[in-house]
């Protein structure tokens, strides 16, 4: 039988409720800036306001409940943050240096980073990264005729 966690979350649902209430309030204010329409009695803002009222109500219930279940406090682990940052870096770099270079760099760096046991090594990681990028480029670029970004550098070189 598992023992009780050493630290227990106490206010997570309340925090979710507070954030939701604040965001609902902001979005409700935004609905007053929607364009007024005269061809329908209910207008653009009707449905969003119904939903926001529901969110506000459930947010209040979450605040009152404070914490619905017993578990360790929420935390984002460093590997999760690192991978998110890597994918975000890929997305930011994509229009700048193009798909092939970004895909290759992203795949290679991520494989090396995740291969902490050094089971693959840099050479195999490089070959795997090249294969993954080339196959993806081939399938999407040539097979599905998707135009993949060539980046500012590729644009400059006339691709």
């Amino acid at each position, binding site marked *: 039988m598992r023992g009780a966690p050493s630290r227990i979350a106490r206010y*997570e*649902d309340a925090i*979710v409720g507070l954030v*939701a209430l604040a965001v609902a309030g902001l*979005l409700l204010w*935004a609905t007053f800036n*929607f*364009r007024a*329409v005269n*061809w*329908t*009695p*209910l207008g*653009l*803002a*009707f*449905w*969003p306001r119904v*939903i*926001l009222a*529901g969110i506000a109500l*459930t*947010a209040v219930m*979450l605040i009152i409940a404070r914490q*619905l279940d017993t*578990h360790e406090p*929420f935390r*984002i*682990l*460093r*590997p*999760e943050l*690192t*991978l*998110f940052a890597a*994918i975000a870096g*890929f*997305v930011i770099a*994509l229009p700048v240096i193009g798909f092939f270079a970004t*895909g290759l760099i*992203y*795949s290679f760096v991520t*494989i090396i980073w*995740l*291969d902490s046991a050094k*089971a*693959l090594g840099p050479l195999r*990681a490089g070959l*795997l*990264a090249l294969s*993954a990028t080339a196959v*993806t480029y081939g*399938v*999407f670029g040539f097979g*599905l*005729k*998707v*135009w*993949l*970004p060539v980046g500012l550098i590729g644009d400059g070189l006339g691709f």
Partner: protein
Amino acid sequence: MSDVLLALSGTLAPANLVILVLGTLIGVIIGIIPGLGTVMAVALLIPFTFGMAPEIGISLLIAVFVGGVSGGCVTAILLRMPGTPSSVATVLDGYPLAQQGRGGEAIGNAVVGSFIGTIISTAALIVFAPLLAQFALRFYFPEFVAVSLFALTAISAVSGTYLIRGIFAALLGLLFATVGISETDALPRFDFGLPAMQAGFNFVPAIMGLFAISQMIKLAGEPRSDAEVSARGLQAGLPSVAEFFRNTGNYLRSGVIGTVIGVVPAVGAATAGLISYAQAKAWSRTPERFGQGHVPGIIASETANNAVVGGALIIALTLGIPGDPTTAVLLGGLMIHGIAPGAQLFNNHPEVIYSIYFTMIFSSLIMAIALIAFLRPLARAALLPRAVLIPVVSLVACVGVFSVNGNIFDLYVMLGFALLGLLMEKLRYPLAPLVLGMVLGPIIEGNLRLMLGQFGDITPLFTRPIALTFMCLSLLTVIYIAVRRLRERSQMKAERPSG
């Protein structure tokens, strides 16, 4: 008849058969790998369907669905780790059987069960879907509002442990669906002056973020698994004819259970497998053998979880109501091709419907042949190093998202939903209601506003018989879950030692 023959010849065309085989294999492989799931499998393949005819595109997605649900049995049996949640009950007898050196026999029976389950539910789909589609012609604005609310309430109530979290997630999904150009008014909402926001949150980036990218991020943070698959000498052992006929009752009962559960929104393949397992044990003359490596337990679980596919499609195709995230993604894929599910689908696009029927049959056959003939290499998929899996899946997901509109903004939407998905999972908020909220939001709003415009108020929801039935079902679902939760809580308090 000509539509049937047209659909059959289309499905059997060499190029389309190749697509079916590939789709089923991809589904099986993703189903085998623990932690990925059928939702991700279907979502990853959606961008590949853009250049295809609608009936072929949706057939590919269904083949992936069938393959994915079936593939989960391999690691459930060999590693005690269900590849997909639908195979959770298969562990109970599959793993003990594998420990006795009879893993091949367990997988063989699981494959046959999966095949039979898919065929039974396909038969139900062929018989009942057209009938329900005709019934759905009686649906008017109030009925669509009521049935959508029921589906959303049901999945909010059943997903996760707490109803309030499920409802919150559903409301978030409904809110996300309002961003962008309103379908009713053709004017932007919540765009904050940004042209990119006027298109709203495209379904594919949202799904990829929630189910593919967030899953890869979560996988990166998990401790390494020391599980090993010994595929040496592994061969799927098919049941003998006598064994097959001895289990006929089990196959039929489990197939019906799975199909019926598939029809009910929110219950899902995992629950179908567990209920069917419990029923098989209750009906067995040797219930004490269940849990010790008893083949009927595996048959019950795998037949039922595959039968859910056809059951879910009955409701999804006729009413446009997805009962689970995978079917929601499937419907999203259909709508991307400009085909709206519902009664008119059967009248206006019979070729799509018949293609779906044939795909279910052929993909279950392909799945069975693949798992029997190529079990050893497929089983090794379970051990694909995450150092390779994570970069490849995330790369394909990013490119798939980009291929929707060729728009970098979609990738930022994907990142946003990935972060949201990760936060929700860590805080134990269910994702399924959010996905359904995004799919059903425009349906509910459109029909609600039309209903209010025509009838003036919401009383038709409570005065029209079909609408009232679904509203009562929604209320009963909430009450049932709330009462059950209260009972569990008071039971826990009573069991807690005093002092």
